[in-house]
């Protein structure tokens, strides 16, 4: 099972110029792709300036002649669309929601990092850069991450100017707090709703452009295919979720800002409609998919309560500032928590990681919780959680202080579980939360298809193998506000006065037909299982074998189970209703279809990455203390997969990661 | 010699009040039509209101009652259409005291007056409270007093007005 990795790493200089492996499967001939990250020359701190100094510009009067499609209206999509429209481009925004304001960025609770150093605690661009690279377990690109840290300060300025009601000190200046994986207070926040406030900020800016007629909004429209003509992205095909109509849209450039694939696990903290379809359709048309095995499991979610559960709810990481995590010392201890004496409790994080204690990073805390539950010491009716106990903090600080800090979260917990966390400890368990892997992009955020860009969680670029808290919002807005508007211009400038293929081009017609046929097929199978059933079963396999703790044997098992289940999906799916009005079952079928293929690629990627790093933990590769063991000699690279007609036969390419500024070190939080 | 000729001041005030009534009815009508159109298809299952109170939900009805009462009130005490069956059977134009007493000595009239004034009280209660919201007179320091003030104004008006027929019926006030 390894048709890939045909090239050995090219020594330095040219970064990973690869030939695609010979393919037997007869898919469309994609042009030879070179994985060139296009990092600008110069010292790390000057690369972005150098890029901007050299990039090509489009005259303001000519911008209206360029049409740019933005798919997705979360932080990255809305900010990119609004900014591109302000610049003068003819922007079309697509969202499957009823309104652009619903994108799942809205659910982010914690905050957004920025190297403002308002606290005078020694923060700097360099520090944020280093923390992010280290947090990502040295599996991200230096150039991209440095730029992210640089523009982080502009993001805060921009969002404040737009009216985001960030938390303030009594003097009226911006307040900050700390977040996991950092020893500085650089996280800006708006109560527990930072994502909501930032998204509304970006949405308002987008709304203004819609009102001015600079942006055309296509709501309740889902991308169902990406069209490439002559090696560049020519546009997209969408399906109107109200009428079922399939329609083509041609553009000079297309941006995918469609989020991550955490829902491949079925149960995750993602919204119900989050899906991989846009990225996967691009992947099928030639965009390489990078590091799909890098998924983040968040340690503090409310555990699953029963079989009907449809999603898991995150409880903010900030709770770990005052809550103590423990399980009973003895297996099968059925006593209620109040009856378990101190001496018979195992505060395992404090025991194993004395210096970071309950604030150990996400991947480490998650694995520790899994091990506690796997050892038979799980708590709750289904024995699938660990306690997050505030008794000590309430005793020390008083109930009022705890209410002030976490009142909202306690209420939310009570609404969901019916238990009062002031009286009984919360129960938490890890859940899929964020995906670091995604479409491969270069420094300009271009995928391997020219003219097709990926911004925000859908790309793989900045978070490496693990994402630090409060970094996702930062990346989405950095890409949308401060990167894409520059790099897209650089691509468009030479296209001035060169006609692009219209929607009457045969490739569009073919793509439309293929999409119509695909959705017609789902309706025609008339099997016995719903898309949700398949999704749930798929999720179980992925969670079991490609979750927090992965082994070669388990991954091989998954790779034999998945194609079998997928085959069943194709023959035994049942979608009721029709294709000409709202049909959420049909929508779901299309999304689950793509999750299946992605799931296979994830497992293959996890199997091929024979090391442990960040969110990817392979049991075979751990040190004597059970910590992740990286293999920098063989795996300090990005794995970028090329679609060849079957995810089981995808071809693995490598982009070597070059560390010029940072010294690779063991990531320790002991 | 008065500054103004007889009844000029009265008529100026009356014209002001008539204009206010006109504007009030126009606004109420416009609001009713607007709000009716805003939900052209009603809920098909029963609503379970949480805080909308009797006063707020019956504004239209109490308003109509008050308008009808207003006409009756004018007819009774200003024009004297039905106010001729007192002790001496005569409506004396300008004899306000006598006319009021003669009218309220009739129990049905007094009852009508009391009922209409209670309706007016509800109307005023919600109207006063709404005034603060609609004009944006909102300040955390006095917000809780808005309800009390609304209750107070409505109570003063109702108690004051209702005291007339009761006083007449109880024999406290008589000819």
């Amino acid at each position, binding site marked *: 099972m390894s048709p890939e990795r045909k090239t050995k790493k090219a020594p330095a200089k040219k970064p990973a110029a690869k030939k695609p492996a010979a393919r037997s499967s007869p898919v469309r001939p994609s042009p030879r792709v070179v994985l060139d990250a296009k990092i600008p020359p110069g010292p790390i701190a000057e690369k972005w300036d150098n890029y901007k100094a050299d990039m090509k510009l489009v005259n303001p009067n000519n911008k209206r002649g360029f049409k740019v499609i933005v798919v997705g209206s979360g932080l990255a999509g809305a900010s990119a669309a609004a900014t591109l429209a302000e610049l003068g481009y003819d922007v079309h925004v697509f969202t499957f929601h*009823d*309104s*652009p*304001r*619903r994108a*799942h960025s*809205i*659910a982010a609770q914690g905050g957004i990092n920025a190297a403002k150093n308002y606290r005078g605690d020694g923060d700097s661009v360099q520090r944020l850069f280093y923390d992010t690279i280290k947090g990502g377990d040295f599996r991200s690109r230096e150039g991209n991450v440095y730029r992210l840290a640089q523009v982080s300060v*502009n993001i*805060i*300025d921009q969002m*404040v*100017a737009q*009216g985001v*009601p*960030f938390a*303030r000190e009594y*003097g009226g200046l911006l307040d900050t707090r700390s977040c996991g994986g950092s020893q500085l207070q650089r996280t800006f926040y*708006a*109560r527990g709703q930072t994502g909501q406030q930032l998204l*509304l900020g970006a949405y308002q*800016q987008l*709304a203004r452009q819609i*009102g001015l007629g600079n942006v055309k909004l296509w709501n309740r429209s889902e991308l169902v295919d990406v069209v490439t003509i002559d090696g560049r992205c020519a546009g997209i095909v969408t399906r109107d979720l109200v009428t079922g109509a399939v329609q083509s849209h041609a553009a000079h450039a297309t941006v995918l800002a469609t989020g991550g694939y955490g829902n491949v696990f079925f149960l995750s903290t993602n*919204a119900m409609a989050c899906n991989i379809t846009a990225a996967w359709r691009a992947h099928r048309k030639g965009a390489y998919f990078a590091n799909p095995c890098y998924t983040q499991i968040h340690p503090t979610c409310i555990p699953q*309560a029963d079989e*009907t559960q*449809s999603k898991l709810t*995150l409880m903010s990481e900030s709770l770990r500032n005052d809550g103590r995590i423990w399980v009973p010392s003895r297996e099968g201890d059925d006593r209620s928590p109040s009856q378990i004496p101190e001496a018979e409790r195992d505060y395992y994080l404090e025991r194993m990681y004395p210096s970071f204690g309950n604030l150990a990073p996400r991947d480490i805390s998650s694995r520790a919780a899994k091990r506690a539950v796997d050892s038979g010491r799980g708590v709750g009716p289904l024995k699938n959680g660990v306690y997050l106990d505030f008794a000590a903090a309430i005793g020390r600080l008083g109930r009022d202080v705890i209410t002030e800090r976490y009142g909202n979260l306690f209420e939310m917990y009570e*609404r969901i*579980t*019916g238990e009062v966390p002031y009286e009984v400890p919360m129960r938490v368990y890890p859940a899929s939360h964020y995906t670091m892997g995604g479409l491969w992009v270069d420094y300009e955020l271009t995928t391997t298809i020219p003219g097709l860009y990926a911004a925000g969680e859908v790309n793989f670029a900045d978070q490496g193998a693990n994402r630090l808290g409060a970094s996702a919002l930062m990346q989405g807005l950095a890409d949308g*506000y*401060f990167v894409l*508007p520059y790099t897209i211009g650089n691509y468009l400038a030479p296209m001035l006065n060169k006609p692009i293929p219209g929607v009457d081009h045969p490739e569009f017609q073919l793509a439309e037909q293929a999409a119509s046929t695909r959705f017609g097929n789902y309706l025609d199978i008339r099997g016995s299982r719903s898309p*949700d*059933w398949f999704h749930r079963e798929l999720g179980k396999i992925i969670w079991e074998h490609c979750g927090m703790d992965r082994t070669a044997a388990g991954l091989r098992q998954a790779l034999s189970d998945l194609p079998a289940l997928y085959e069943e999906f194709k023959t035994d799916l049942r979608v*009721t*209703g029709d294709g000409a009005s*709202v*049909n*959420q*079952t049909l929508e779901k079928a299309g999304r689950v279809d793509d999750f299946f293929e992605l799931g296979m690629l994830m497992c293959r990627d996890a199997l091929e990455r024979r090391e442990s790093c960040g969110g990817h933990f392979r049991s075979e590769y751990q040190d004597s203390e059970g910590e992740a063991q990286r293999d920098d000699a063989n795996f300090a690279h990005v794995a970028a997969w090329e679609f060849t007609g079957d995810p089981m036969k995808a071809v693995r390419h490598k982009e070597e990661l070059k560390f010029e500024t940072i010294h690779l070190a063991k990531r320790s939080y002991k | 010699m008065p500054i103004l000729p007889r009844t000029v001041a009265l008529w100026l005030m009356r014209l002001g009040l008539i204009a206010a009534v006109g504007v009030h009815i126009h606004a109420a009508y416009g609001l009713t039509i*607007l*709000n009716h159109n*805003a*939900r052209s*298809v*009603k*809920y098909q*299952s*029963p*609503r379970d*209101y*949480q*805080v*909308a109170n009797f006063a707020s*939900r019956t504004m239209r009805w109490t308003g109509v009652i008050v308008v009808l009462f207003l006409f009756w009130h004018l007819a009774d005490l200003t024009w004297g259409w039905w106010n001729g069956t007192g002790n001496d059977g005569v409506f004396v134009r300008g004899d306000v005291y006598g006319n009021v007493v003669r009218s309220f000595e009739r129990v049905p009239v007094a009852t009508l007056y009391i009922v209409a004034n209670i309706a007016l009280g509800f109307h005023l209660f919600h109207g006063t409270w709404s005034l603060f919201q*609609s004009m*944006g007179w909102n300040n955390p320091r006095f917000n809780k007093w808005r309800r009390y003030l609304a209750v107070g104004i409505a109570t003063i008006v109702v108690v004051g007005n209702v005291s007339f027929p009761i006083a007449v019926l109880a024999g406290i006030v008589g000819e």
Partner: protein
Amino acid sequence: MKNLENLVLRIWRQSGPDDPGRFQSYRIDSISDEASFLEMLDVLNEKLIGEGLEAIAFDHDCREGICGTCSLMIDGQPHGPQRGTATCQLHMRKFSSGETITVEPWRATAFPIIKDLIVDRAPFDRIVEAGGFITATTGGAPEANLTPVPKPVAEAAMDAAACIGCGACVAACPNGAASLFTAAKVSHLNLLPQGQAERWSRVEAMVETMEQYFGSCTNHGECEAACPKSISIDFIALMNKDYLSAKLKNRALISRT
């Protein structure tokens, strides 16, 4: 954890905008009280698909009470019987065995029904497009700490900004008014120093756009009770005050448009 038995659901089914629609009754034999209301509908939909019937269409997404996609009039109350809770966070433990639960879509002329329980809330977007923003083009923002914002002001703005745009206020209002939504958006921006330049033009544009679609506020207060974020009707007063000011002041001096 226990189960609820023998629930009857009366659910509004409507195949499209032109269908008159009707209530249809469904039976749920048993459901865990840990299930959320929407998960109960998921279970029902699975059952319907199993029987070869079309699933009930309803809007939902994040299922953690923040995206504002879910709706539903449950037993005559928007988002159901629990205060300060969106339908997605309402759990079955709030109901009891043998109950009949009636589920209807939001009803307002501005929110036409698309299918079953799904309505079109696009007029909310139109209101925001009219003025619910601060014009601050990317790149031109001043240093963030240049303008201090007093903490109480920031807190009040945040209270208003917590609005999730679900439309429960319109659904709850006996007049089908959208004053709470509009007021929340207006107040969030009008309270902040950054929003002052467009304060008067914003409130005027947003209120007048609102009036094109929705009914008028008569201060019932139902919206506040139905709001899953418990946004106060004090913000409606603030909006009215600003609207009045915008109309009375010499706006030509304040914001030349």
